[in-house]
Protein backbone atom coordinates (compact mmCIF):
# COMPACT_ATOMS: atom_id res chain seq x y z
CA UNK A 1 0.00 0.00 0.00
CA UNK A 2 1.23 3.47 -0.77
CA UNK A 3 -0.14 6.54 0.88
CA UNK A 4 1.03 9.86 -0.43
CA UNK A 5 1.73 11.14 3.08
CA UNK A 6 2.89 14.65 2.11
CA UNK A 7 -0.22 15.17 -0.04
CA UNK A 8 -2.57 14.04 2.75
CA UNK A 9 -0.70 16.19 5.25
CA UNK A 10 -0.84 19.17 2.88
CA UNK A 11 -4.61 18.97 2.48
CA UNK A 12 -5.20 18.54 6.23
CA UNK A 13 -2.97 21.53 7.02
CA UNK A 14 -4.40 23.60 4.18
CA UNK A 15 -7.98 23.06 5.37
CA UNK A 16 -6.98 23.98 8.94
CA UNK A 17 -5.14 27.05 7.66
CA UNK A 18 -7.97 28.38 5.51
CA UNK A 19 -10.59 27.54 8.15
CA UNK A 20 -8.61 29.32 10.88
CA UNK A 21 -7.98 32.30 8.63
CA UNK A 22 -11.73 32.61 8.02
CA UNK A 23 -12.34 32.26 11.75
CA UNK A 24 -9.95 35.16 12.41
CA UNK A 25 -12.23 37.36 10.32
CA UNK A 26 -15.68 36.13 11.38
CA UNK A 27 -15.23 35.31 15.10
CA UNK A 28 -17.41 37.70 17.12
CA UNK A 29 -14.93 37.90 20.02
CA UNK A 30 -11.60 39.41 19.17
CA UNK A 31 -9.61 37.26 21.60
CA UNK A 32 -10.89 34.14 19.86
CA UNK A 33 -9.90 35.73 16.56
CA UNK A 34 -6.37 36.31 17.91
CA UNK A 35 -6.18 32.68 19.05
CA UNK A 36 -7.16 31.48 15.58
CA UNK A 37 -4.37 33.69 14.27
CA UNK A 38 -1.98 31.46 16.27
CA UNK A 39 -3.51 28.44 14.52
CA UNK A 40 -2.98 30.15 11.16
CA UNK A 41 0.71 30.73 11.91
CA UNK A 42 1.08 27.15 13.16
CA UNK A 43 -0.51 25.73 10.02
CA UNK A 44 1.70 27.95 7.86
CA UNK A 45 4.69 26.51 9.71
CA UNK A 46 3.34 23.04 8.87
CA UNK A 47 3.30 23.98 5.17
CA UNK A 48 6.93 25.13 5.45
CA UNK A 49 7.85 21.78 7.01
CA UNK A 50 6.26 19.99 4.04
CA UNK A 51 8.44 22.15 1.77
CA UNK A 52 11.54 20.90 3.66
CA UNK A 53 12.08 24.40 5.05
CA UNK A 54 12.29 23.46 8.75
CA UNK A 55 14.24 26.55 9.69
CA UNK A 56 11.65 28.93 8.27
CA UNK A 57 8.92 26.86 9.95
CA UNK A 58 10.56 27.15 13.36
CA UNK A 59 11.21 30.86 12.91
CA UNK A 60 7.58 31.31 11.88
CA UNK A 61 6.43 29.73 15.18
CA UNK A 62 9.10 31.49 17.25
CA UNK A 63 8.43 34.99 15.95
CA UNK A 64 4.86 35.13 14.68
CA UNK A 65 3.10 32.65 16.97
CA UNK A 66 5.41 33.15 19.95
CA UNK A 67 6.03 36.90 19.97
CA UNK A 68 3.87 38.89 17.58
CA UNK A 69 0.54 37.33 18.54
CA UNK A 70 1.37 37.61 22.23
CA UNK A 71 1.80 41.35 21.68
CA UNK A 72 -1.54 41.47 19.88
CA UNK A 73 -3.18 39.56 22.75
CA UNK A 74 -1.67 41.98 25.26
CA UNK A 75 -2.97 44.96 23.39
CA UNK A 76 -6.43 43.38 23.30
CA UNK A 77 -6.48 42.29 26.93
CA UNK A 78 -5.33 45.63 28.26
CA UNK A 79 -7.56 47.82 26.12
CA UNK A 80 -10.68 45.76 25.62
CA UNK A 81 -14.01 47.19 26.68
CA UNK A 82 -15.52 44.32 28.63
CA UNK A 83 -19.06 45.67 28.28
CA UNK A 84 -19.38 45.14 24.53
CA UNK A 85 -20.84 41.80 23.51
CA UNK A 86 -19.35 41.76 20.00
CA UNK A 87 -15.71 42.86 20.06
CA UNK A 88 -14.85 41.94 16.46
CA UNK A 89 -17.74 43.54 14.53
CA UNK A 90 -18.20 43.48 10.77
CA UNK A 91 -17.48 46.62 8.84
CA UNK A 92 -20.22 47.90 6.58
CA UNK A 93 -17.85 47.56 3.64
CA UNK A 94 -17.33 43.82 4.00
CA UNK A 95 -18.50 43.20 0.43
CA UNK A 96 -15.73 45.46 -0.86
CA UNK A 97 -13.12 43.56 1.14
CA UNK A 98 -14.55 40.27 -0.16
CA UNK A 99 -14.31 41.51 -3.73
CA UNK A 100 -10.66 42.54 -3.27
CA UNK A 101 -9.87 39.15 -1.71
CA UNK A 102 -11.43 37.29 -4.64
CA UNK A 103 -9.48 39.42 -7.13
CA UNK A 104 -6.23 38.87 -5.23
CA UNK A 105 -6.78 35.11 -5.05
CA UNK A 106 -7.58 35.01 -8.78
CA UNK A 107 -4.40 36.95 -9.52
CA UNK A 108 -2.24 34.59 -7.44
CA UNK A 109 -3.80 31.46 -8.99
CA UNK A 110 -3.34 32.90 -12.48
CA UNK A 111 0.30 33.81 -11.77
CA UNK A 112 1.14 30.37 -10.32
CA UNK A 113 -0.44 28.55 -13.26
CA UNK A 114 0.83 30.66 -16.13
CA UNK A 115 4.14 32.21 -15.11
CA UNK A 116 7.29 30.43 -16.37
CA UNK A 117 9.07 31.85 -13.30
CA UNK A 118 6.94 29.89 -10.83
CA UNK A 119 7.85 26.43 -12.11
CA UNK A 120 11.48 27.44 -12.64
CA UNK A 121 11.81 28.85 -9.13
CA UNK A 122 10.45 25.63 -7.63
CA UNK A 123 13.04 23.47 -9.38
CA UNK A 124 15.80 25.93 -8.47
CA UNK A 125 14.87 25.66 -4.81
CA UNK A 126 15.05 21.86 -4.73
CA UNK A 127 18.85 21.49 -4.35
CA UNK A 128 18.72 23.96 -1.48
CA UNK A 129 16.03 21.95 0.28
CA UNK A 130 17.80 18.65 -0.23
CA UNK A 131 21.19 19.90 0.96
CA UNK A 132 22.93 17.85 3.63
CA UNK A 133 22.21 19.08 7.14
CA UNK A 134 18.99 20.70 6.05
CA UNK A 135 18.50 24.24 4.90
CA UNK A 136 20.17 25.92 7.87
CA UNK A 137 23.75 25.61 6.61
CA UNK A 138 22.80 26.69 3.09
CA UNK A 139 20.78 29.63 4.42
CA UNK A 140 23.68 30.70 6.60
CA UNK A 141 26.14 30.55 3.72
CA UNK A 142 23.77 32.42 1.44
CA UNK A 143 23.24 35.14 4.06
CA UNK A 144 26.69 35.63 5.58
CA UNK A 145 29.41 33.89 3.56
CA UNK A 146 32.40 36.22 3.08
CA UNK A 147 33.86 34.06 0.29
CA UNK A 148 30.97 33.01 -1.93
CA UNK A 149 28.15 35.12 -3.34
CA UNK A 150 25.97 36.13 -0.39
CA UNK A 151 23.52 38.71 0.87
CA UNK A 152 25.72 40.17 3.62
CA UNK A 153 25.20 43.79 2.62
CA UNK A 154 21.36 43.71 2.39
CA UNK A 155 21.32 41.80 5.68
CA UNK A 156 23.47 44.39 7.42
CA UNK A 157 21.39 47.25 6.00
CA UNK A 158 18.25 45.54 7.30
CA UNK A 159 19.95 45.23 10.72
CA UNK A 160 20.70 48.95 10.76
CA UNK A 161 17.07 49.72 9.87
CA UNK A 162 15.94 47.52 12.76
CA UNK A 163 18.41 49.22 15.10
CA UNK A 164 17.00 52.61 14.14
CA UNK A 165 13.51 51.27 14.80
CA UNK A 166 14.54 50.04 18.26
CA UNK A 167 16.17 53.35 19.15
CA UNK A 168 13.08 55.16 17.90
CA UNK A 169 10.83 52.96 20.03
CA UNK A 170 12.94 53.70 23.10
CA UNK A 171 12.83 57.44 22.36
CA UNK A 172 9.04 57.36 22.10
CA UNK A 173 8.58 55.12 25.14
CA UNK A 174 10.99 56.96 27.41
CA UNK A 175 9.56 59.05 30.21
CA UNK A 176 10.50 62.69 30.11
Amino acid at each position, binding site marked *: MTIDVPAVAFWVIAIILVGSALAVVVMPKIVHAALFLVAVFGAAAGIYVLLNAEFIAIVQV*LIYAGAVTILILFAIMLTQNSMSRVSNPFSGQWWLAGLICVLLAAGIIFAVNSSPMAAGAASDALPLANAAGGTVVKLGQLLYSPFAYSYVLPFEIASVVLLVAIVGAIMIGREE
Partner: protein
Amino acid sequence: MDATLVAIIAAVVKSAIVIAALLTIFAYMTLIERRVLARFQRRVGPNRAGPFGLLQPLADGMKMAFKEQIIPTRARRLVFVIAPSISVFVALAAFAVVPLGSPTAWGSSPTARAWAPLVADVNVGILYILALSSLAVYGIVLGGWSSGNHYSLLGALRSAAQMVSYEVSIGLAIAGVLMFAGTLSMVGIVQAQVQQGIWFILAQPLGFILYFIAATAEVNRAPFDLPEAEQELVAGYLTEFSGLRWSLYQMSEYINMITAASVAATLFFGGWTLGGLDGIPGIPFVWYTIKVAVVLFVFIWMRATLPRIRYDQLMRLGWQLLLPLAVLNLVVTAAVVAFDVPWWISTIFSLIVLAIGGIVYYVRRRRVEPSAQPSDEALRLALPTSVRLVRIDSSASAATARQPAEVSPN
Protein backbone atom coordinates in the same frame (compact mmCIF):
# COMPACT_ATOMS: atom_id res chain seq x y z
CA MET B 1 6.84 -3.14 5.19
CA ASP B 2 6.70 0.34 3.76
CA ALA B 3 9.27 2.60 5.40
CA THR B 4 6.81 5.51 5.63
CA LEU B 5 4.23 3.34 7.38
CA VAL B 6 6.85 2.06 9.83
CA ALA B 7 7.94 5.63 10.53
CA ILE B 8 4.36 6.72 11.25
CA ILE B 9 3.65 3.72 13.53
CA ALA B 10 6.97 4.21 15.32
CA ALA B 11 6.29 7.90 15.84
CA VAL B 12 2.84 7.23 17.30
CA VAL B 13 4.08 4.44 19.61
CA LYS B 14 7.08 6.45 20.78
CA SER B 15 4.95 9.55 21.40
CA ALA B 16 2.56 7.46 23.51
CA ILE B 17 5.47 6.05 25.52
CA VAL B 18 6.99 9.52 26.04
CA ILE B 19 3.65 11.00 27.15
CA ALA B 20 2.94 8.14 29.58
CA ALA B 21 6.48 8.28 30.94
CA LEU B 22 6.44 12.07 31.37
CA LEU B 23 3.12 11.99 33.21
CA THR B 24 4.40 9.29 35.57
CA ILE B 25 7.65 11.16 36.14
CA PHE B 26 5.66 14.33 36.81
CA ALA B 27 3.66 12.52 39.51
CA TYR B 28 6.80 11.23 41.17
CA MET B 29 8.66 14.53 40.73
CA THR B 30 6.05 16.14 42.98
CA LEU B 31 6.71 13.48 45.61
CA ILE B 32 10.49 13.74 45.25
CA GLU B 33 10.35 17.53 45.41
CA ARG B 34 8.22 17.48 48.58
CA ARG B 35 10.49 14.92 50.23
CA VAL B 36 13.67 16.76 49.26
CA LEU B 37 12.26 20.14 50.32
CA ALA B 38 11.24 18.56 53.62
CA ARG B 39 14.81 17.33 54.10
CA PHE B 40 16.11 20.85 53.44
CA GLN B 41 13.72 22.19 56.05
CA ARG B 42 14.40 19.45 58.61
CA ARG B 43 10.98 17.89 58.21
CA VAL B 44 10.04 14.36 57.21
CA GLY B 45 7.71 15.15 54.31
CA PRO B 46 4.84 12.99 53.03
CA ASN B 47 5.52 9.39 54.10
CA ARG B 48 2.08 8.05 55.07
CA ALA B 49 0.68 6.66 51.81
CA GLY B 50 2.53 3.44 51.05
CA PRO B 51 6.19 2.69 51.80
CA PHE B 52 8.23 5.95 51.88
CA GLY B 53 5.08 7.74 50.70
CA LEU B 54 5.34 6.11 47.28
CA LEU B 55 1.57 6.06 46.81
CA GLN B 56 1.25 9.77 47.63
CA PRO B 57 1.06 10.86 43.94
CA LEU B 58 -1.76 8.34 43.41
CA ALA B 59 -3.64 9.74 46.40
CA ASP B 60 -3.09 13.30 45.18
CA GLY B 61 -4.29 12.33 41.72
CA MET B 62 -7.48 10.77 43.11
CA LYS B 63 -8.12 13.84 45.23
CA MET B 64 -7.64 16.18 42.28
CA ALA B 65 -9.86 14.06 40.03
CA PHE B 66 -12.79 14.18 42.46
CA LYS B 67 -12.42 17.84 43.38
CA GLU B 68 -15.00 20.27 42.04
CA GLN B 69 -13.72 22.26 39.08
CA ILE B 70 -15.03 25.72 39.75
CA ILE B 71 -15.53 28.12 36.85
CA PRO B 72 -15.94 31.68 38.19
CA THR B 73 -18.97 33.61 36.95
CA ARG B 74 -16.77 36.35 35.52
CA ALA B 75 -14.53 33.88 33.69
CA ARG B 76 -14.44 33.64 29.91
CA ARG B 77 -15.58 30.04 29.86
CA LEU B 78 -14.17 28.69 26.60
CA VAL B 79 -10.70 30.12 27.01
CA PHE B 80 -10.73 29.24 30.73
CA VAL B 81 -11.37 25.58 29.90
CA ILE B 82 -8.80 25.18 27.12
CA ALA B 83 -5.95 27.26 28.62
CA PRO B 84 -4.56 24.48 30.90
CA SER B 85 -4.65 22.02 28.01
CA ILE B 86 -2.64 24.40 25.81
CA SER B 87 -0.02 24.56 28.55
CA VAL B 88 0.32 20.78 28.80
CA PHE B 89 0.20 20.23 25.04
CA VAL B 90 3.08 22.62 24.45
CA ALA B 91 5.12 21.14 27.32
CA LEU B 92 4.69 17.58 26.07
CA ALA B 93 5.38 18.47 22.45
CA ALA B 94 8.68 20.15 23.31
CA PHE B 95 10.10 16.88 24.63
CA ALA B 96 9.82 15.17 21.21
CA VAL B 97 13.33 16.02 20.03
CA VAL B 98 15.22 15.09 23.21
CA PRO B 99 17.48 12.09 22.46
CA LEU B 100 17.53 9.41 25.18
CA GLY B 101 20.15 7.31 23.35
CA SER B 102 22.18 7.17 20.18
CA PRO B 103 20.16 6.67 16.97
CA THR B 104 23.25 5.24 15.24
CA ALA B 105 23.14 2.22 17.59
CA TRP B 106 19.82 1.28 15.96
CA GLY B 107 21.42 0.50 12.59
CA SER B 108 21.37 2.55 9.43
CA SER B 109 18.26 1.30 7.60
CA PRO B 110 15.29 3.72 7.77
CA THR B 111 12.96 1.08 9.25
CA ALA B 112 15.39 0.27 12.06
CA ARG B 113 16.27 3.93 12.62
CA ALA B 114 12.57 4.71 13.04
CA TRP B 115 12.69 3.02 16.47
CA ALA B 116 15.64 5.09 17.74
CA PRO B 117 15.09 6.40 21.28
CA LEU B 118 13.81 9.85 20.40
CA VAL B 119 10.48 10.77 18.83
CA ALA B 120 11.94 12.89 16.03
CA ASP B 121 15.51 13.63 14.98
CA VAL B 122 14.81 17.09 13.61
CA ASN B 123 17.84 18.87 12.20
CA VAL B 124 16.74 22.11 13.89
CA GLY B 125 16.00 20.30 17.18
CA ILE B 126 17.17 22.94 19.65
CA LEU B 127 15.29 25.68 17.79
CA TYR B 128 12.19 23.49 17.92
CA ILE B 129 12.44 23.39 21.72
CA LEU B 130 12.95 27.18 21.86
CA ALA B 131 9.95 27.74 19.58
CA LEU B 132 7.65 25.55 21.66
CA SER B 133 8.83 27.03 24.94
CA SER B 134 7.99 30.45 23.49
CA LEU B 135 4.44 29.13 23.02
CA ALA B 136 4.28 28.04 26.68
CA VAL B 137 3.43 31.62 27.60
CA TYR B 138 0.00 31.23 25.95
CA GLY B 139 -1.28 28.76 28.53
CA ILE B 140 -0.40 31.14 31.35
CA VAL B 141 -1.52 34.39 29.71
CA LEU B 142 -4.84 32.94 28.56
CA GLY B 143 -5.43 31.24 31.92
CA GLY B 144 -4.74 34.45 33.81
CA TRP B 145 -6.80 36.63 31.51
CA SER B 146 -9.79 34.28 31.26
CA SER B 147 -10.12 34.01 35.04
CA GLY B 148 -11.69 37.48 35.13
CA ASN B 149 -9.63 38.33 38.20
CA HIS B 150 -7.17 41.19 38.54
CA TYR B 151 -4.55 39.21 40.44
CA SER B 152 -4.65 36.48 37.81
CA LEU B 153 -4.23 39.02 35.03
CA LEU B 154 -1.29 40.64 36.86
CA GLY B 155 0.33 37.23 37.30
CA ALA B 156 -0.17 36.47 33.63
CA LEU B 157 1.35 39.80 32.58
CA ARG B 158 4.35 39.29 34.84
CA SER B 159 4.80 35.83 33.48
CA ALA B 160 4.67 36.93 29.87
CA ALA B 161 7.16 39.76 30.45
CA GLN B 162 9.47 37.39 32.30
CA MET B 163 9.35 34.61 29.73
CA VAL B 164 9.80 36.96 26.78
CA SER B 165 12.78 38.66 28.49
CA TYR B 166 14.58 35.49 29.41
CA GLU B 167 13.99 33.73 26.09
CA VAL B 168 16.49 36.14 24.54
CA SER B 169 19.13 35.21 27.11
CA ILE B 170 18.49 31.48 26.64
CA GLY B 171 18.97 31.73 22.90
CA LEU B 172 22.21 33.69 23.22
CA ALA B 173 23.55 31.50 26.06
CA ILE B 174 23.23 28.29 24.06
CA ALA B 175 24.51 29.90 20.84
CA GLY B 176 28.07 29.37 22.11
CA VAL B 177 27.48 25.62 22.35
CA LEU B 178 25.91 25.61 18.91
CA MET B 179 29.02 27.29 17.48
CA PHE B 180 31.26 24.61 18.97
CA ALA B 181 28.93 21.85 17.76
CA GLY B 182 28.32 23.32 14.32
CA THR B 183 24.80 21.90 14.22
CA LEU B 184 21.31 22.57 15.59
CA SER B 185 20.36 18.90 15.88
CA MET B 186 20.19 17.53 19.43
CA VAL B 187 21.75 14.24 18.28
CA GLY B 188 24.39 16.15 16.33
CA ILE B 189 25.34 18.21 19.39
CA VAL B 190 25.97 15.06 21.45
CA GLN B 191 27.95 13.49 18.60
CA ALA B 192 30.02 16.68 18.30
CA GLN B 193 30.91 16.39 22.00
CA VAL B 194 32.03 12.77 21.46
CA GLN B 195 34.12 13.78 18.43
CA GLN B 196 35.81 16.69 20.18
CA GLY B 197 36.32 14.62 23.32
CA ILE B 198 34.90 17.22 25.72
CA TRP B 199 31.63 18.08 27.35
CA PHE B 200 30.69 21.56 26.26
CA ILE B 201 30.35 22.69 29.88
CA LEU B 202 34.18 22.55 29.97
CA ALA B 203 34.39 25.02 27.10
CA GLN B 204 31.32 27.03 28.12
CA PRO B 205 31.02 27.32 31.92
CA LEU B 206 29.66 30.86 31.60
CA GLY B 207 27.22 29.77 28.92
CA PHE B 208 25.96 26.98 31.16
CA ILE B 209 25.39 29.25 34.15
CA LEU B 210 23.60 31.82 31.98
CA TYR B 211 21.48 29.05 30.45
CA PHE B 212 20.65 27.62 33.85
CA ILE B 213 19.53 30.95 35.33
CA ALA B 214 17.53 31.87 32.24
CA ALA B 215 15.96 28.40 32.05
CA THR B 216 14.89 28.63 35.70
CA ALA B 217 13.18 31.90 34.90
CA GLU B 218 11.68 30.48 31.72
CA VAL B 219 10.01 27.58 33.55
CA ASN B 220 8.83 29.91 36.36
CA ARG B 221 10.66 28.07 39.11
CA ALA B 222 11.78 29.61 42.38
CA PRO B 223 13.52 32.05 42.81
CA PHE B 224 11.85 33.34 39.64
CA ASP B 225 8.31 32.15 40.46
CA LEU B 226 6.84 35.65 40.42
CA PRO B 227 3.87 34.75 38.22
CA GLU B 228 2.52 32.59 41.04
CA ALA B 229 3.81 34.59 44.00
CA GLU B 230 1.52 33.59 46.87
CA GLN B 231 2.12 36.63 49.05
CA GLU B 232 1.47 39.32 46.46
CA LEU B 233 -0.78 37.72 43.90
CA VAL B 234 -2.54 34.88 45.74
CA ALA B 235 -0.89 32.44 43.29
CA GLY B 236 -1.31 34.65 40.21
CA TYR B 237 -2.72 32.96 37.14
CA LEU B 238 -3.46 29.80 39.17
CA THR B 239 -5.86 31.53 41.58
CA GLU B 240 -9.14 30.48 39.99
CA PHE B 241 -8.09 27.04 38.84
CA SER B 242 -9.00 23.99 40.90
CA GLY B 243 -9.08 20.23 40.57
CA LEU B 244 -7.68 18.69 37.41
CA ARG B 245 -7.20 22.02 35.63
CA TRP B 246 -4.89 23.11 38.42
CA SER B 247 -3.00 19.81 38.13
CA LEU B 248 -2.62 20.38 34.40
CA TYR B 249 -0.74 23.62 35.13
CA GLN B 250 1.44 21.85 37.67
CA MET B 251 2.02 19.11 35.11
CA SER B 252 3.18 21.55 32.46
CA GLU B 253 5.50 23.28 34.93
CA TYR B 254 7.21 20.04 35.88
CA ILE B 255 7.40 18.76 32.31
CA ASN B 256 8.94 22.07 31.22
CA MET B 257 11.44 21.64 34.03
CA ILE B 258 12.32 18.13 32.83
CA THR B 259 12.74 19.44 29.28
CA ALA B 260 14.97 22.28 30.47
CA ALA B 261 17.06 19.76 32.43
CA SER B 262 17.25 17.49 29.37
CA VAL B 263 18.46 20.37 27.22
CA ALA B 264 21.11 21.18 29.82
CA ALA B 265 22.21 17.52 29.92
CA THR B 266 22.29 17.25 26.13
CA LEU B 267 24.01 20.53 25.37
CA PHE B 268 26.46 20.79 28.23
CA PHE B 269 26.93 17.29 29.70
CA GLY B 270 27.16 15.04 26.65
CA GLY B 271 23.61 13.69 26.71
CA TRP B 272 23.57 9.91 26.74
CA THR B 273 27.37 9.46 26.60
CA LEU B 274 29.91 8.95 29.36
CA GLY B 275 33.34 7.37 29.18
CA GLY B 276 32.76 5.32 26.03
CA LEU B 277 30.34 2.98 27.82
CA ASP B 278 27.41 3.95 25.61
CA GLY B 279 27.85 0.94 23.32
CA ILE B 280 26.24 -1.35 25.93
CA PRO B 281 22.43 -1.51 25.51
CA GLY B 282 20.54 0.36 28.20
CA ILE B 283 23.60 2.22 29.52
CA PRO B 284 23.00 5.45 27.48
CA PHE B 285 19.56 5.78 29.00
CA VAL B 286 21.00 5.34 32.50
CA TRP B 287 23.59 8.08 31.91
CA TYR B 288 20.95 10.38 30.48
CA THR B 289 18.65 9.76 33.46
CA ILE B 290 21.42 10.39 35.99
CA LYS B 291 22.42 13.67 34.32
CA VAL B 292 18.84 14.92 34.15
CA ALA B 293 18.20 13.85 37.74
CA VAL B 294 21.21 15.84 38.96
CA VAL B 295 20.03 18.97 37.14
CA LEU B 296 16.50 18.51 38.50
CA PHE B 297 17.92 18.15 41.99
CA VAL B 298 19.71 21.49 41.57
CA PHE B 299 16.37 23.05 40.57
CA ILE B 300 14.83 21.80 43.82
CA TRP B 301 17.90 22.83 45.77
CA MET B 302 17.63 26.37 44.45
CA ARG B 303 13.96 26.49 45.37
CA ALA B 304 14.79 25.46 48.92
CA THR B 305 17.68 27.90 49.25
CA LEU B 306 16.98 31.16 47.46
CA PRO B 307 14.29 33.71 48.30
CA ARG B 308 12.04 34.96 45.52
CA ILE B 309 13.47 38.06 43.83
CA ARG B 310 11.57 41.29 43.29
CA TYR B 311 10.07 42.18 39.93
CA ASP B 312 12.46 45.07 39.23
CA GLN B 313 15.41 42.85 40.25
CA LEU B 314 14.14 40.21 37.83
CA MET B 315 14.07 42.63 34.92
CA ARG B 316 17.43 44.17 35.85
CA LEU B 317 19.04 40.73 36.13
CA GLY B 318 17.67 39.61 32.79
CA TRP B 319 18.36 42.67 30.67
CA GLN B 320 21.36 44.27 32.38
CA LEU B 321 23.37 41.25 33.51
CA LEU B 322 22.43 38.03 31.70
CA LEU B 323 21.98 39.57 28.26
CA PRO B 324 25.29 41.52 28.09
CA LEU B 325 27.19 38.55 29.53
CA ALA B 326 25.57 36.22 26.99
CA VAL B 327 26.56 38.56 24.16
CA LEU B 328 30.11 38.78 25.53
CA ASN B 329 30.28 34.99 25.77
CA LEU B 330 28.98 34.74 22.22
CA VAL B 331 31.60 37.13 20.83
CA VAL B 332 34.50 35.35 22.57
CA THR B 333 33.23 31.92 21.53
CA ALA B 334 32.83 33.10 17.96
CA ALA B 335 36.44 34.30 17.97
CA VAL B 336 37.66 31.00 19.42
CA VAL B 337 35.77 28.97 16.81
CA ALA B 338 36.61 31.24 13.89
CA PHE B 339 40.36 31.44 14.55
CA ASP B 340 40.47 27.73 15.40
CA VAL B 341 42.30 28.22 18.72
CA PRO B 342 42.01 25.51 21.44
CA TRP B 343 38.70 25.34 23.27
CA TRP B 344 40.18 26.06 26.70
CA ILE B 345 40.73 29.71 25.72
CA SER B 346 36.98 30.23 26.06
CA THR B 347 37.06 28.28 29.37
CA ILE B 348 39.67 30.64 30.78
CA PHE B 349 37.68 33.63 29.63
CA SER B 350 34.50 32.22 31.22
CA LEU B 351 36.26 31.55 34.51
CA ILE B 352 37.71 35.08 34.58
CA VAL B 353 34.24 36.56 34.03
CA LEU B 354 32.76 34.31 36.72
CA ALA B 355 35.57 35.21 39.15
CA ILE B 356 35.00 38.94 38.57
CA GLY B 357 31.29 38.39 39.10
CA GLY B 358 31.93 36.50 42.32
CA ILE B 359 34.26 39.21 43.67
CA VAL B 360 31.78 41.99 42.83
CA TYR B 361 28.98 40.02 44.49
CA TYR B 362 31.06 39.36 47.60
CA VAL B 363 32.16 42.98 47.95
CA ARG B 364 28.61 44.33 47.52
CA ARG B 365 27.26 41.76 49.96
CA ARG B 366 29.83 42.77 52.54
CA ARG B 367 28.88 46.41 52.10
CA VAL B 368 25.18 45.67 52.58
CA GLU B 369 25.55 43.47 55.66
CA PRO B 370 28.49 44.77 57.68
CA SER B 371 27.37 43.02 60.89
CA ALA B 372 26.48 39.65 59.47
CA GLN B 373 29.21 37.93 61.46
CA PRO B 374 28.10 36.64 64.88
CA SER B 375 30.12 38.16 67.68
CA ASP B 376 28.47 36.68 70.74
CA GLU B 377 30.85 33.81 71.39
CA ALA B 378 28.69 31.92 73.88
CA LEU B 379 25.60 32.02 71.73
CA ARG B 380 27.54 30.92 68.70
CA LEU B 381 28.94 27.90 70.54
CA ALA B 382 25.48 26.91 71.76
CA LEU B 383 24.00 26.80 68.26
CA PRO B 384 24.73 24.44 65.37
CA THR B 385 27.08 25.89 62.77
CA SER B 386 24.37 25.97 60.12
CA VAL B 387 22.45 28.69 61.99
CA ARG B 388 23.42 32.24 61.08
CA LEU B 389 22.90 35.15 63.43
CA VAL B 390 21.56 38.57 62.50
CA ARG B 391 22.40 41.36 64.90
CA ILE B 392 19.48 43.54 65.92
CA ASP B 393 20.05 47.22 65.41
CA SER B 394 20.03 48.66 68.95
CA SER B 395 18.57 51.99 67.84
CA ALA B 396 15.50 50.31 66.37
CA SER B 397 13.66 49.83 69.64
CA ALA B 398 14.46 49.65 73.31
CA ALA B 399 12.68 46.35 73.81
CA THR B 400 14.65 44.46 71.21
CA ALA B 401 17.89 46.16 72.15
CA ARG B 402 18.20 44.04 75.25
CA GLN B 403 18.27 40.89 73.19
CA PRO B 404 21.79 40.34 71.85
CA ALA B 405 20.75 38.57 68.65
CA GLU B 406 17.91 36.91 66.88
CA VAL B 407 18.12 33.43 65.44
CA SER B 408 17.48 33.53 61.75
CA PRO B 409 15.95 30.35 60.33
CA ASN B 410 17.79 30.91 57.09
